[in-house]
């Protein structure tokens, strides 16, 4: 009991420390001073009266939301003897693997730098600065020569690293035994099984209404949709982050989604935030980074070619270029197994006073990175708000998808969860695909790394990201990937090559996300799965038909 109390005290101290530096703290102070004018504040009971005033005026709620946000993002304080690396990643061999992977990325970037004779960073001449400022809102019209640039790495390169991840203390024998992993991931992380997932994702059960299924045109809106929208409006009126997070587990109505996400992520556009964004914009104008060319290339290769997102090309540059200059992102490296790359000012190699991070936010974009931002453009049109939402989504979730860690929402755990689910509940399919050289993870990895962005229709993707926010976990990505395979199981049993399997699985734009969750829950008895799938097929066909009609 005493241990829990001291842990609680430490968490409180940590949160207080963090909030003291925030805008909210100075606002609360100002409000407290201003409230002294009010007649109901009496000197004898000053503390209680001010607390009461905060409660009535809604400031207490804002503070609650800020505390809730801190609790969601920051891990619990670790043991006092644990070094800072332990908080980033407790397993030593994973830290080492992440370190080697990073070194490869740095080497790749350095060699690109020397080959192309382009500096990592340079100050723009004044003329160029003016030009960029003028075309800030239409950077997409620029067609710079990016042919010599190549992405630093693609998801499939990262997959190869994960496949080769080994625990040196683990029995990695050659002979097949009960301990052999049949999938690609060979590390024994703890992943949830279906009973545990059912417990965790209880709101996705068959007996609970979901947006995405129960708001389709065949279902009368009085049954679920109307009430759900009404509750959503109430949650927004109360401005309660925790309630919003609970609410969104059943999906968010399209009209309320932007506000709900902002409430859950605790983003409120204050003038200071807009100013901060403008400052980042100035940094982009003043300095040109090599990373900018990588971003340009990535946007041109991915988002610009996508039917849903090509219209947002300009927004993507405005967000991603500023993101690279944002030093506040560096704080998330305290609990990210990755570390920001370091460099020195020219001529001052080795002198710590001249050591800087590159890029300023420490994140080197890879092929497909811009797809993390693209879906958000449907929700937010004001660049500084769009920027804030993306940054918060990145430091809460997306960074886990491209760094090696043992965290339950980390990509390694997601891959293992996917493979374990498939092996346990669709063993025939898993075996068949393995035999034809089409390991299922090779197909689904890119879906999970991008959080399905670009692989699902946007309305379905946003319903999926609703659940990521609602459960504060990325495990839903692995469950969805397994469910897609379960849905396509009958057809996949007939393919004979990896390419054919990829092809079949890739036609997922017509998928409706929400019905697929219960799909996997039902596939527990393999022999009846086929029968049920035929049922689901016909049901889903009619649903996707109606979705197309609506959009």
């Amino acid at each position, binding site marked *: 009991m*005493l*241990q829990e*109390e*001291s842990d609680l*005290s430490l968490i*409180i*101290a940590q949160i*207080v*420390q963090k909030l*003291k*530096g925030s805008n909210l703290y100075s606002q609360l102070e100002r409000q407290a001073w201003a409230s002294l004018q009010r007649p109901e504040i009496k000197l004898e009971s000053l503390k209680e009266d001010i607390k009461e005033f905060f409660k009535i005026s809604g400031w207490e709620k804002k503070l609650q939301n800020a505390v809730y946000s801190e609790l969601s993002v920051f891990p619990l304080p*670790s*043991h006092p*003897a*644990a070094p800072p690396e*332990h908080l980033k990643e*407790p*397993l*030593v061999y994973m830290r080492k693997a992440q370190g080697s992977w990073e*070194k490869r990325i*740095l*080497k790749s*970037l*350095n060699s690109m*730098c*020397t080959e192309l004779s382009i*500096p*990592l*960073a340079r*100050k723009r001449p004044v003329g160029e600065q003016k030009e960029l400022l003028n075309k800030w809102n239409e950077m997409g019209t620029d067609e710079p020569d990016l042919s010599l640039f190549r992405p630093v790495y693609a998801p499939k390169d990262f997959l190869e690293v994960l496949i080769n991840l080994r*625990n*040196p*203390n*683990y*029995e990695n024998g050659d002979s097949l035994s009960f*301990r052999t992993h049949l999938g690609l991931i060979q*590390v*024994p*992380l*703890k992943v949830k099984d279906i009973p545990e997932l059912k417990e965790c994702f209880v709101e996705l059960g068959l007996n609970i209404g979901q947006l995405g299924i129960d708001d389709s045109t065949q279902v009368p809106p009085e049954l679920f949709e109307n009430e759900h929208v009404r509750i959503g409006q109430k949650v927004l009126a109360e401005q309660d982050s925790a309630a919003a997070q609970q609410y969104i587990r059943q999906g968010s109505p399209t009209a309320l989604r932007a506000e709900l996400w902002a409430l859950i992520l605790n983003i409120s556009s204050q003038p200071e935030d807009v100013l901060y964004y403008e400052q980042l914009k100035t*940094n982009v104008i003043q*300095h040109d980074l090599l990373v900018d060319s990588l971003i340009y290339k990535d946007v041109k290769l991915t988002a610009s070619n996508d039917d849903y997102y090509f219209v947002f090309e300009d927004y993507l540059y405005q967000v991603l270029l500023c993101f690279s200059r*944002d*030093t*506040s992102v560096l704080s998330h490296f305290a609990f990210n197994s990755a570390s920001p*790359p*370091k*460099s*020195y*000012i*020219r*001529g001052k*190699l080795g002198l710590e*006073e*001249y*050591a*800087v*991070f*590159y890029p300023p936010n420490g994140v080197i974009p890879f092929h497909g990175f811009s797809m993390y931002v693209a879906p958000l453009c449907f929700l937010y049109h004001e660049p500084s708000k769009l920027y804030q939402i993306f940054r918060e989504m990145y430091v809460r979730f997306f960074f886990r998808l491209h760094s090696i860690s*043992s965290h339950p929402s980390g990509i390694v755990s997601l891959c293992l969860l996917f493979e374990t689910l498939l092996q346990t509940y669709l063993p025939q399919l898993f075996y068949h695909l393995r035999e034809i050289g089409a390991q299922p993870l090779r197909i689904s990895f890119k879906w999970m790394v991008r959080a399905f962005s670009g692989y699902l229709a946007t309305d379905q993707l946003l319903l999926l990201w609703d659940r990521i926010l609602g459960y504060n976990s990325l495990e839903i990505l692995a469950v969805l990937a397994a469910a897609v395979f379960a849905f396509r199981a009958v057809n996949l049993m007939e393919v004979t090559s990896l390419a054919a399997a990829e092809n079949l699985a890739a036609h997922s734009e017509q998928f409706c996300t929400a019905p697929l969750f219960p799909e996997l829950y039902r596939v527990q008895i393999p022999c009846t799965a086929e029968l049920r799938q035929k049922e689901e097929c016909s049901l889903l066909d009619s649903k996707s038909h109606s979705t197309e009609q609506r959009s």
Partner: protein
Amino acid sequence: MSRVLVPCHVKGSVALQVGDVRTSQGRPGVLVIDVTFPSVAPFELQEITFKNYYTAFLSIRVRQYTSAHTPAKWVTCLRDYCLMPDPHSEEGAQEYVSLFKHQMLCDMARISELRLILRQPSPLWLSFTVEELQIYQQGPKSPSVTFPKWLSHPVPCEQPALLREMWALTEMIRASHTSARIGRFDVDGCYDLNLLSYT
């Protein structure tokens, strides 16, 4: 709460296994680590900290003097404390752990020797142990510190001393300055870089 590190000598771990260690196929699932305190008189143990390395369960036995004249006896003070909830997976495998005297089954006064019994039932791991073992005894009471004025607020007497100290810690951290972020990534306006550094 102050604590004082007790210098100890940690003997090498001994595997408990039926049959010949060299010829039998299986790995030992039980290891015993003896800890002695050659230069210290029997003391009251306050805390044990260590870093786990794939040990699933821990039992601790102590050699204790019950009174001045009777010989010391071995007593089990911790039985099958779970360090890894699932011995086959990585959860808890490399965590830092602290064990306090209030978690023990007996009182921890007059300890002269310690025996850690480590168990790892899963055959998947090549080896297991505990590292960075440190034993602490109760330190002297902390000298009088000038507490800030707010502490003269009447504190409810039911709160035990420990809670009050922790509350004091919270308040002191709160009183300290926070580091404001400036947001500049360049050095004096200059961001001309060499190549990326590998160290």
